[in-house]
């Protein structure tokens, strides 16, 4: 028991060391500063994917995370541009806005199961895009551009985070921000899944009728999980808008929603850290295949199909298999 625990703590510390020390050191040594942008994207996408994973965990196929990422991006951009809010304040607000919206949307649609829920969420992404095109506040197809970089964050006169515009290396700053949020997000997820709440979510996933008959308030739990999921989507969308300093209706599309889902599949639906690994592999895999030119999509899709056939429980199930052999 304690042995196991020590291993987990060691793994956690090693992970933090890699993310916050080894990666920046390796990048500055190699001079490949563009990797910061790539890894920042991976961190943010894995936060959104973690949300999708949580809805999988209660037995719902969610292809609508793009809608919340887009909404989060717009909420943050509009508050910064039109109302002069600090980016740091818009970050939680964007998440909470998405969570609130998801409660309203989730109450009716979470009653659906399987492919029906999946279809509705797929449509949701498209609805969000069309809304962004049509609403006056979102500035239509032109989107919102020239969003200033995040300013300084001070509490009681102490500057916790410096103004990103004054930094020489804002890429590193964004990387550290995204990585920190990713770590927090997955720490929360890990705790959720390994507490009783995780077991309750599993009970929903495996049999809602039985869960309800042992007194689980399934409607409530479903909405809570969906709201947490959407919160993650909104936060990651808000940071994306800040990094690219712009947001358009096409910033997050159905393809993104599908990718969030694929990240979860690839990493493994049974493992909390599945979406993180899935995002990393998928993002770099796609980039690596860039050299194959017009065959990129063909090879990529083929590989995905093969992987799902060979490893239906995701990449992390490989670790479990080797452990069982020992």
């Amino acid at each position, binding site marked *: 028991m304690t042995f196991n625990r020590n291993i987990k703590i060691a793994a956690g510390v090693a992970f933090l060391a890699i993310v916050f020390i080894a990666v920046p050191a390796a990048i500055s040594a190699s001079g490949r500063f563009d990797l910061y942008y790539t890894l920042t994207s991976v961190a943010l996408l894995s936060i959104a994917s973690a949300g999708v994973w949580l809805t999988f965990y209660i037995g719902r196929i969610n292809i609508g995370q793009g809608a919340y990422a887009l909404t989060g991006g717009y909420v943050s951009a509009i508050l910064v541009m039109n109302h002069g809010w600090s980016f740091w304040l818009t970050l939680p607000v964007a998440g909470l806005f998405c969570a609130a919206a998801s409660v309203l949307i989730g109450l009716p649609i979470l009653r659906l199961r399987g492919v029906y829920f999946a279809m509705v969420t797929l449509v949701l992404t498209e609805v969000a895009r069309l809304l962004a095109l049509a609403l006056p506040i979102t500035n239509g197809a032109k989107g919102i551009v020239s969003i200033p970089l995040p300013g300084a964050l001070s509490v009681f006169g102490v500057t916790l985070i410096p103004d990103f515009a004054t930094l020489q290396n804002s890429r590193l700053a964004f990387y550290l921000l995204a990585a920190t949020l990713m770590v927090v997000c997955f720490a929360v997820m890990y705790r959720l899944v390994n507490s009783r709440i995780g077991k309750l979510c599993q009970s929903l996933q495996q049999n809602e*009728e039985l869960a*309800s008959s042992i*007194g689980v*308030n399934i409607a409530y739990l479903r909405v809570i999980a969906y709201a947490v999921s959407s919160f993650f989507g909104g936060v990651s969308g808000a940071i994306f808008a800040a990094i690219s300093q712009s947001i358009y209706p096409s910033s997050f599309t159905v393809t993104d929603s599908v990718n969030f889902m694929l990240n979860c599949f690839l990493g493994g639906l049974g493992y909390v850290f599945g979406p993180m690994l899935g995002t990393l592999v998928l993002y770099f895999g796609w980039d690596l295949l860039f050299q194959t030119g017009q065959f990129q999509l063909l090879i990529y899709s083929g590989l995905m199909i093969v992987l799902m056939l060979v490893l239906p429980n995701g990449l992390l199930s490989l670790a479990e298999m080797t452990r069982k052999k020992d």
Partner: protein
Amino acid sequence: MAEMLEVSGLTKRFGGLVAVNNVSFSVREKEILSVIGPNGAGKSTLFKLIASFLRPTTGEVRLKGERISGLAPHIAARKGVVRTFQETTIFKNMSVRDNVVIAHHLRSKASLFGFFLGTGAAKADEAAFGASADEILALLGLASLAGETARNLPHGHLRALGIAIGLATDPSILLLDEPFAGMNHDETMRMVEMVRRLRERGLTILLVEHDMPAVMKISDRLVVLNFGQKIAEGTPSEIQANEKVIEAYLGSEDEAIGL
């Protein structure tokens, strides 16, 4: 003996079909009462009405005098009416022990957020649930299978696990949906013993069942349904002698009602 559950004038219509028609009866405390009837008699509908999985068209169900019909199933479960399922409904990808531990959910004192933070109340809950789950598993002869993934259990044990889950919620009345279905003679006899042991623990039991010999052996009283209506109520020997019941089971009268 006091009355635990009262069913009065219960009717359920599905469009033009009257699945349950004005059925009334009551279950006494610590009684084993069985609802029997030919296929399509409305047993399952009645069962779902009592467990609040369906809302009655008219009529009501009362638990210890308090109306429970029309509540959401999880609320009815909190009040003390807990059902098991006809098919082997369990959380199939959890371990046997986890199935029973999670079923203690109703007894939690800690909130969801408390469980997230791992507060003292949450830890106390976890410990108590674990101990109680082990006791229930031992009672139902599942202790040696505690670590097994539930879907790997053989049929008879799955049914016992279903009952263990029901038991873990600490119900006032446990509704068993065809607990003997698909069992051979030995398994049935073991299950009969198990249900009797539950009653000895002070539980009131309502069961819906096809297997006549088992029902006759186990029940204090029976309610017989046919075409959605109650046609008889009484002790096993009264029911076996009842003309209407024999008529309802016409064609297979002798063996089907265990004469």
